[in-house]
């Protein structure tokens, strides 16, 4: 059975060209990048080249790129690192942040910091008025994600910048989902820190970066050998870093085409979804071109998901990270979506290789499943 992958916001398949540059670092004798002999120096050079590739893709300076083990670590690092610098301060975030921004803030709360939440509108965005509701003065960090992983809704970064400036706080955006799907320019966003992940842009898993403005000062999360300018210790994951660098280069080249391509697929999908009676979340605001988050009234999401997987379609219910638990999406609840409807939510996220035929096949499969489920419900009733 042909398998169709519609879950690119969870993870992406490695680009063959990325694998090509990684292979020598997996297969051949390699040095520890900190070693002084030629093996070590060679590894060091490769890492610095990758750092330049990452910087170039987002219009940052190479010295602003700190490699981490992934997006989760980068987000934990900025929350913990900014908080420690300013004891008893307030940490501000939107109420739809990924758990790896939200939970570290909760953890700091237990240690004496305060937390203030920016509530999103029913379309899933933070508005100018919402920022005004934050009365706390001693704010150390404000974090609002660039694009939401579930709805794909894109936030206004100029509002974040203005708020941070007014409060004299560090601004941070989790750009894990936005990077590679929209043009992300660190120099024009005027944000102090930004999180990137490799495995969402056809790079390997296990590597990401925190982009940190040169003027910003934070404490490390992991101490040791002093790698990454003392901000992130540990022997560098060289193969993955080299792969991440290449993936950044490739995604910069292909971004516009991919974005246009997935937009076409999304248009086809959403027309049919609405035809079948689906509710599409964050429909009215600017969203990523590849993401559709939707639900059918009175249809159990998990049943639909399993049935579609059996037919060869890999889609998601909310985010992969939390798909272990059956709680309704916290993003939808934050948007004020009814709990039952939220429980049925499904996410489709397209990628470079998806085709219009796949989308049409999916719609057909979905139509049949919906009929079966409705019949079953009718019998049960």
């Amino acid at each position, binding site marked *: 059975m042909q*398998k169709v*992958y519609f*879950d690119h916001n*969870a993870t*992406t*398949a*490695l680009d063959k060209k990325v694998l090509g540059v990684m292979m020598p670092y*997996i*297969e*051949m*004798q*390699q*040095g*520890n990048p*900190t*070693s*002084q*002999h*030629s*093996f*070590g120096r060679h590894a060091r050079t490769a890492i610095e080249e990758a750092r330049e590739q990452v910087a170039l893709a987002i219009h940052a300076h190479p010295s602003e790129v700190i490699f*981490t*083990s*992934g*997006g*989760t*670590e980068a987000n*934990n690092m900025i929350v913990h690192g900014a908080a420690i610098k300013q004891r008893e301060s307030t940490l501000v975030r939107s109420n739809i942040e990924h*758990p*790896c921004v939200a*939970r*570290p803030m909760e*953890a700091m709360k237990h240690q004496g910091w305060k937390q203030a939440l920016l509530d999103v509108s029913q379309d899933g965005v933070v508005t100018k008025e919402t920022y005004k509701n934050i009365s706390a003065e001693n704010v150390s960090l404000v974090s609002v994600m660039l694009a939401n992983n579930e709805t794909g809704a894109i936030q206004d970064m100029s509002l974040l910048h203005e708020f941070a400036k007014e409060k004299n706080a560090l601004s941070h955006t989790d750009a894990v989902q936005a990077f590679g799907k929209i043009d992300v320019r660190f120099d024009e966003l005027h944000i102090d820190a930004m999180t990137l*992940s490799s*495995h969402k842009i056809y790079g*390997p*898993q*296990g*590597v990401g970066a925190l982009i940190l403005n040169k003027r910003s000062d934070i404490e490390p*999360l*992991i*101490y040791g050998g*002093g790698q990454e300018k003392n901000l992130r*210790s*540990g*022997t*560098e*994951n060289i*193969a*993955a870093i080299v792969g991440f660098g290449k993936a950044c280069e490739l995604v910069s080249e292909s971004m516009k085409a991919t974005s246009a391509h997935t937009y076409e697929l999304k248009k086809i999908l959403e027309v049919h979804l609405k035809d079948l009676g689906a509710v599409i979340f964050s429909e009215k605001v600017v969203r990523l071109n590849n993401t559709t988050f939707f639900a059918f009234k009175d249809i159990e999401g998990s049943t639909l998901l*399993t049935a579609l*997987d059996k037919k060869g*379609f*890999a889609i*998601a219910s909310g985010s*992969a*990270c*939390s*798909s*272990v638990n059956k709680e309704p999406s916290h993003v939808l609840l934050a948007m004020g979506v009814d709990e039952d409807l939220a429980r049925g939510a499904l996410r489709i996220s397209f990628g470079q290789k998806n085709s219009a035929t796949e989308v049409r096949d999916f719609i057909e499969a979905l139509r049949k499943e919906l009929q079966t489920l409705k019949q079953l419900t009718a019998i049960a009733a």
Partner: protein
Amino acid sequence: MTKDIARKPIYLDYSSTTPVDPRVAEKMIPFITEHFGNPASRSHSFGWTAEEAVEEARDEVAKLVNADPREIVWTSGATESNNLAIKGASHFYSTKGKHILTVSTEHKCVIDSFRELEREGYTATYLEPEPNGLVDLEKFKKAIRPDTVLASVMFVNNEIGVIQDIEALGNICREQKVIFHVDAAQATGKVDIDLEKLPVDLMSFSAHKTYGPKGIGALYVRRKPRIRIEAQMHGGGHERGMRSGTLATHQIVGMGEAFRIARIEMQLENERIRKLRDKLLHGLQDMEEVYVNGDLKHRIPHNLNISFNYVEGESLIMAVKDIAVSSGSACTSASLEPSYVLRALGRSDELAHSSIRFSIGRFTTEADVDFTIQLLKEKIHKLRELSPLWDMFKDGIDISKVEWAAH
């Protein structure tokens, strides 16, 4: 490119990092390309395949150290594992007390985690080892206080390769109800580790020191009696809440395979490597004024750390460019400070500076060792010919008693 490879020096720096075993690389590749799913995706088969592979690898890691797979938590490497274990357990049990104990010759990421806890208000003791690099059990016992919450001692030292008596140290910790953490980054595949028997609560592992990929490691967290730790990376709640973040499936698969190979081949490999090491040792000991750093009996067969007296450290490293070795540990080799480990053993700055760590591994051949002995003999001879100190020594002058004129 081919030319470049041909000129590459002989690699004798396996304690710094090892190449990925070709069998490991082969096993990893499909998980980069075909089975690329996110192991946390529960809604489709891409995710399930990845999850299955992750659990299989967890079994392999557990098997090498005779632990329960549920006691293995994936991390990005030993540095993260050490940070997580030391800070995580000290924080969780902080009500018990705020004194922590370690040894001055630990890896930098252990020392730095301790320093961070000190900044948070903990008191730390950095025990000095004996001149042979081993921890004296009585001194260790005496260093434990009623408010000691955690002790951390490495299994095998990265610079001098000495093996600590983990069982005895662990028993002392058990008696005193102190949580015992062991950094085993340099131990896996080199010494037998049986966590059913060893009284250890937390143990850190690294893949890239055991022919696995970089960027992946694990932390053993004992279940019986259960040890709790505070997470330092929060998020999706992966690894039962102890370490969030998408798991790098191919790297985990690589670590599993590397540890499986280590389990099966360790005995034979250690014998072979011991012979090479002994050959290297005897070859180098032909020369005068050559000192082995660290105990030779309680030591992994892979390591030889030697100081060459009356040779200037920097020129020594420059002279042996045809072999890739370390002076001090790789992590601190960017600095020109003499190794803090060797100084803790009571070595003078001069001897610490003129030390070389040779670490032998799976792909080292007898010809490599022969070449190295020949190279060292030749270069040391030359360097000493240029050294006025060597002349003085040869003339029978005790240099330590010379009073140098001030300028």
